[in-house]
């Protein structure tokens, strides 16, 4: 049965077991598309309850990495994935892994908002509904809470049953975040989630993510170094499908060990 996101419970869990296994571990991950080696032997442990930014030049495999974490590449053409991705210690690429269950644990915020073709209310209620929650009162509560969570409640509370596509792009993106949060994920994946937004909406989303990290493990793909600097605790730098550098934000941005990272951070490679 579906249980409503219990933020307090998660917090206490983390306090009582500070050394819990990382939510997300990537081990020897290789991805080939059309025989091309796109991701090369990726090994990463994403720290819990923090924001990890993935940076790197265009085409280096950031989106691909994010999608493999959610098994969204399963249906792509000519793809071969080896290695493992462990969510709470369970390999999501294991033979008997149940894919809908895995995906539910991760909220995805894509580059452009994609509201489902239904009302604002139904967009958020969709996830809980398919996972078995049909109680009207509880659904109302979830929708209200999640909309408040992303700061959208005041703006839309009078038109919950209007089509979601009538919202502005920035509002839609926040709606999509709320929709993702409504299924009570543990991990949030964002792929350049602010690139279609104006500076103010961008800031709203950034602040939200920073707020949310106390309850979620967050991975963001971004092109904007300043954004990575503003929001993230850790940074992974990908170049040509390889992770060249991973560390605390200041370390990677200020004292990169790898030469290519240095050049990228200084703005020589874009």
């Amino acid at each position, binding site marked *: 049965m579906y249980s409503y996101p219990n933020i307090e419970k998660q917090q206490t869990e983390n306090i009582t077991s500070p050394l819990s296994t990382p939510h997300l571990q990537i081990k020897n991950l290789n991805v080939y598309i059309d025989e091309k080696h796109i991701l090369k032997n990726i090994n990463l442990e994403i720290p819990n309850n923090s924001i990890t930014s993935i940076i790197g030049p265009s085409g280096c495999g950031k989106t691909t990495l994010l999608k493999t974490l959610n098994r969204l590449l399963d249906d792509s053409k000519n793809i071969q994935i080896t290695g493992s991705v462990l969510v709470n210690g369970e390999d999501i690429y294991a033979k008997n892994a149940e894919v809908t269950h895995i995906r539910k644990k*991760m909220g995805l915020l894509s580059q452009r908002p994609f509201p489902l073709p239904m009302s604002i209310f139904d967009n958020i209620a969709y996830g809980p509904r398919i996972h078995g929650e049909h109680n009207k009162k509880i659904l109302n509560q979830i929708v209200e809470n999640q909309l408040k969570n992303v700061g959208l409640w005041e703006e839309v509370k009078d038109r919950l049953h209007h089509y979601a596509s009538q919202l502005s792009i920035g509002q839609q993106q926040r709606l999509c975040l709320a929709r993702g949060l409504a299924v009570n994920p543990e991990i949030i994946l964002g792929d350049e989630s602010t690139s279609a937004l104006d500076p103010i909406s961008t800031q709203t989303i950034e602040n939200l993510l920073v707020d949310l990290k106390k309850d979620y493990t967050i991975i963001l793909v971004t092109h904007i170094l300043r954004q990575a600097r503003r929001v993230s605790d850790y940074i992974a730098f990908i170049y040509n499908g390889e992770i060249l550098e991973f560390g605390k934000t200041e370390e990677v941005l200020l004292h990169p060990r790898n030469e290519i990272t240095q050049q990228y951070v200084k703005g020589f490679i874009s």
Partner: protein
Amino acid sequence: MTNNINSRLRKEKIAKVIMQIAGFCIIGSLFLIVGIILYKGVPYLSWDMITETPKGGFYIGKSGGILNAILGSLYLASAATLLAIIIGIPISIYLNLYIKSDSIISRSAKLMFDVLYGIPSIVYGAIAFSIMIWLGIRASLLGGILTITLLTIPIVVRTVDELIKTIPEDLKNVTKSLGATRWESSLILLKYIKTGLFTAMLLAFGRAIGDVAGVLLTTGFSDNIPKYLDEPAATLPLAIFFQLSSPIPEVQGRAYASALILTCIILIIVICTHILTSKNNKQKI
């Protein structure tokens, strides 16, 4: 530089003229067809035509109407369209959303549907007819419905295929990442292409109601309104065909009146679809 601009503008103009000529040709021939049907058919159009079944001697110019064929065609086309939609949409969903759309099964199935799409309906009719003889079934409404369903399934499958291709990859990822099963995702995606589905339905209905060769052998012809599925039934295209081949001017005129009725039915369906789709479009994106 200016030369370049001039030649580009000239190309633009030529393209425009070609498009206009093509447009006029199409619209012109449409008017021609409708004009001829109106000119030849209207004088023979009467209330009796659409409210009466053929009386004795109808085909030599005596009184009666083609209600049998109107209802026969409507029953046949509606049932076949409904069945084709019910069967065709799941097939297309399966081929595109359940299994990888580039898998061998999916690709060969699509190739097969392309071939089926291109096979002329007389072949469907002939095959269905031989099966019916083998099973000992006589020409009947049911035989016609099944044959026409087979004929229209490829239309539905291919149209829905094209619709599914227009769904953004990211929208598919949204439902997936919320933990929806393939079936639940499919329902949402169907909602997204809902207006297109009406078009698919329209195409299927148009082909179903206008087909002659498929029903010729399988549905037969009857002067009575079909009451049961195992009775033979008249259809409008066949009614037109029979009347048109008569040497009697009165009967030939009625053929054009029948064509006019068929055209009106299709027009009504088209208008209804348009109203439905535009209503839906306003709600959606």
